[in-house]
Each structure stands twice: as C-alpha cells, then as structure tokens.
C-alpha cells in the first residue's frame, strides 16, 4: 500500500507523522521523502550505508555547425529558453522544462538530447530497518518535479511493502506529482484558520486525483473548532488527533521521532494504518 502524507500548509507535521508512522508499522516499510526542496526525513531517521545517485533532466545539445538558422527551436520553445539571433542560438538551461520539442522541430537535426543535473537521490536503511529514499534538489535549481519523479521511481516493488510518501507543502505541481498514484492520502492539518484554509485547497487538489482522503489534526487544542466542522460537512474522516504538546515539539527539535519516547503512540498510529487498510480494501 502507498500512503501519501500531504498538507497544503507547511510545518503542520507531515514529516513527523511519516517517520513516526513508519516506526510504528511491522513488516517491510519504505519512506519516500518527496520534499526534494527541503528533505527532512533523514534528519529524524539517519541512514546507514547510503547510496547517492544524480538526477538529470533532458536538455537540448546544439550542433552550431549543423544549425541553418531556421529559428524553429526558438519559435517552438514554450518557456522561451532558446533565443535565436544572428550568431546562432543561445540557450538558458534554467528556463528549460525538458519537453524535447526543439529537437523535434529542428529541420536540420542540429539538436540532440543532452543532460543537465538537477540534484541527487539518497537511498539507505535506518538502524530500525526502514528503507528511506530522498531527493535533494541542487541549490539554485528551480526544476524540482523530475527529482520527485526519480524518488518515486525507487518505490519498492517487493510484495507487501508499505510505502509512505512524505510530500512537499503547497498544492501545485510538486505536491501533485508526489501524491499521484498513491492508494490513500493523509492530510495533516492544525486547527487554525491557516490550517483550515490550506487544508481546503489541498483537498480540492487531491480530489481531482480521485484518491481517498483522511485527515489528521495535529496540535489539537491550540486553535478553534472550524477544521472539525469542515471535515464533518465534507464527510472527511478524522483519523487521529495529536494534541498540542511542548514535549513532542522538543523531541522534534532534537531530531527524535516521538514514538521512540512516547511509545503509547505506536499502537495509535498502527490503528490509523489499519483503518486506512479497511477503507481502501
């Protein structure tokens, strides 16, 4: 089973939940950290025997000798990454989305497929045996979705593995790419107007993907009741409430998953997992 953990708003506790859920399950567990901008799973779950591989995106490679200055590539380029002037073409790699259209439109076969590095993928196991894969976008690089795709391509194919996907905040392409293809999405929110506002946006987005959704209210008790009224009116199940607790926040600050200290939470998180299993089967 693949469970995506998303939120809309940042800092609601996605990573903490992903890690603590992974440590509460028995059997084969894999965590995919798709927040390649700012991956944090490994700050709570250090990896042993880590492997690191680069991620590339497609970019055009121009053969200026073959270029007959048709300017077709520049005319096509949807993101204006190619400028065709008097002295041949100039290419701005950071604007290129890697669609390959320039290669198809060049009448002189003067463009071939090249590569540009976007970041790296780390993969390894924790001392508890959890398999963790995370993407790390190069600083200064705007294009994150191919890195997320590369993380997801490493999802375990081993039968019976439960895959937990820690998603980036927001509701645009990186979040959509991360959640896409999951069997279930857990949305982590906090009971404040900020939490509610972004929860609504996230739900509108994930409903388009036709993935069943459940909500976990983190820092329960800190705000108001509106998240609860919203969930009840939208018939969204509240899978769990995690109370506002300075102790949990302090453990997080040290990089300690709270289930390792507050062990009673293991069975609660395991129950959440079983509830999800029942809902999707």
């Amino acid at each position, binding site marked *: 089973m693949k469970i995506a953990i998303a939120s809309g708003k*940042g800092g609601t506790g996605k990573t903490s939940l992903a890690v603590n859920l992974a440590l509460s399950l028995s059997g084969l567990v894999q965590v995919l950290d798709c927040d390649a901008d700012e991956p944090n799973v490994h700050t709570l779950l250090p990896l042993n025997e880590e492997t690191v591989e680069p991620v590339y995106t497609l970019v055009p490679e121009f053969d200026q000798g073959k270029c007959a200055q048709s300017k077709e590539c520049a005319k096509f380029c949807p993101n204006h990454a190619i400028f065709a002037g008097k002295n041949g073409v100039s290419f701005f790699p950071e604007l290129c989305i890697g669609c390959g259209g320039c290669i198809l439109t060049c009448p002189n076969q003067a463009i071939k497929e090249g590569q540009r590095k976007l970041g790296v993928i780390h993969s390894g196991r924790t001392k508890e045996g959890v398999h963790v894969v995370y993407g790390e976008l190069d600083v200064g690089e705007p*294009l994150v979705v191919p890195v997320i795709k590369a993380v997801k391509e490493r999802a375990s194919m081993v039968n019976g593995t439960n895959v937990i996907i820690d998603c980036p905040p927001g509701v645009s392409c990186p979040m959509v790419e991360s959640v896409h293809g999951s069997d279930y999405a857990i949305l982590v929110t906090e009971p404040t107007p900020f939490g509610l506002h972004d929860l609504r946006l996230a739900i509108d987005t994930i409903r*388009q993907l036709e993935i069943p959704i459940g909500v976990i209210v983190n820092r329960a008790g800190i705000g108001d009741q509106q998240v609860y009224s919203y969930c009840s009116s939208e018939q969204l199940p509240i899978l769990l409430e995690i109370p506002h607790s300075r102790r949990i926040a302090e453990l997080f600050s*040290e990089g300690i998953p709270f289930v390792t200290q507050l062990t009673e939470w293991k069975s609660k998180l395991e129950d959440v997992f079983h509830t999800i299993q029942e809902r999707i089967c």
Partner: protein
Amino acid sequence: MKELVIVSGKGGTGKTSITAALAVLTSNAILADCDVDAPNLHLLLAPEIKSSEEFVEAKVAVIDSELCRSCGVCETTCKFDAIAPDFRVDPIMCEGCGVCYISCPYNAIAMRERLSGYIYTSETKYGPMAHALLLAGESNSGKLVTRVRELASKLALQNNKDLIIIDGPPGIACAAISAITGTSAGLVVTEPTVAAIHDLERVLKLFEHFRIPVMVLINKADLNHKKTLEIMKYCTQNGIPIVGKLIYDTIMYKAVVSGRPIVEYAPSNSLSNNLEEIWKKIEQQLDTHNED
C-alpha cells in the same frame, strides 16, 4: 524602492505571522503574498479586494477523439506522462508544452488556454496589497509569483511607497526563486529544530547564489536553547546578521484564530515588544544595504 522578502525553507516556522506583524509596524509599505500555493496573509490582514484579474499563462492539450486514430505518437513524445492510455490528456500532468500538438500525424490535438488562478489588488488597513490564488492542481506558481511582484511594484509607484514586504513560499525551488530574485534583502524565519536548521542552511545558500543580502530571525527560540546557539554560531561564522529571537508562545496561534496580527492582538505582550525591536534592526539592515 526596496523589496524585503520573508522566507524560511521549512514551512510553518512563522513567516506569515511575522510578515503581518511587520506590515502593522511599518504601516507604510506595499504588501505582497507570494505564497501563491497556500496564501495565508489575507487571513490576518483582511484585505478588501479592489480588482482581480485572471492568470492565464499556461496552455493545455486537448485531443479530439473523432480525429484521433490511437496511433500512440503523442504518448511516446510526451515527457510528462500526461497522455492517459485511452488517449485523453490528463490536465493535471500536462505542462502545455505543445510537443503532442506538433507530433500528432492526424492534427487531432489542439492547445487551449487554461485559467490557472487569479491575481488581486486589495486595500488593507496597513496599506495596499497584491496577492493571488493558484487554482487546485494548476502549475506555474513561479510565474504567478512574478506577476504578484510586478503588481506590487506598480502599486508602490502609484501610491508613492518605497518598501514592498513579500510573504514568500516555503522551499527553495521555482516559486521560492521567483520570490527571492532581485529583492533588496531577505529575512529568513527559522526555528531551533534539526529539520529547520537543515533547511535554513539550504535557503541561506540560495541567497548567496543570487547574491542577495540576508538576515535571520529565530522563532520559538526557547524550544531548544542548544539548537538556538547552533544557529547563532552558524550565522556568526557566515557573517549573517540575526535580527532577533522570539519565544515559543501559543498566543501566536490565538492571534491567528482571532484573524489579527500579533502586535494588534496582544500589543503589550513581550512578543509584540520584541517584534518592534526586530523591525528596527531590519530597517537598519535595509538602510545599510541601500548605502552599499
């Protein structure tokens, strides 16, 4: 004109609460919410929308099922897995590049404009505000951020203001880069947690990459004194000014629930006093960089 962008790397460190407090303390700036994916600043500043415009930047491919012969060329050429097995375009995955359109041998594909969001010009008690909303499942948040910043600059000229305060998005990719590039200075709101420190280092490198001066504010500083010291040491070693520290107090959440900036909700609270001090330091930093 100066632009101050507030970012964090990690989400949920308090960017928006702090931006709203600064908006009150300056009372003479243009405000811009550039977290277009999940904008929250309007929940504290109660803007009155004066005008809105559609954000139509991207295109989406549409396959005419009557002309389509299911040859599969589009599926092979699309780099974004946007062609479903039944030869329909999945608009969520489609980047609107037009590669399928040019490669279809039967001219069965058209490119249509797509409405991706709205851009708003608003008025708040604290000054004019530029903000936006990206529609569910839409991409191009970087371009929308740029449009919001362009609108904010226009409002600054019209209203004769020389400061724009930008509430930025989390992360360091496309939307964050669009919010940061070309600004006068950045304020990074961080917290003393292992995760936030990891993200802080990456976002500070992003400022270095774009050669933009940056300062740091440590929120929830008493949550972990050791980690707060670690942040201070890191910033000192790298010559990054720390404009202040705020303690972890749940009154911040109460202010959010009340829909008001903390400095208005609890003006005599120590957090509000600290924020006044912090704002003075930020102004000094902005002036310093102006002289450079």
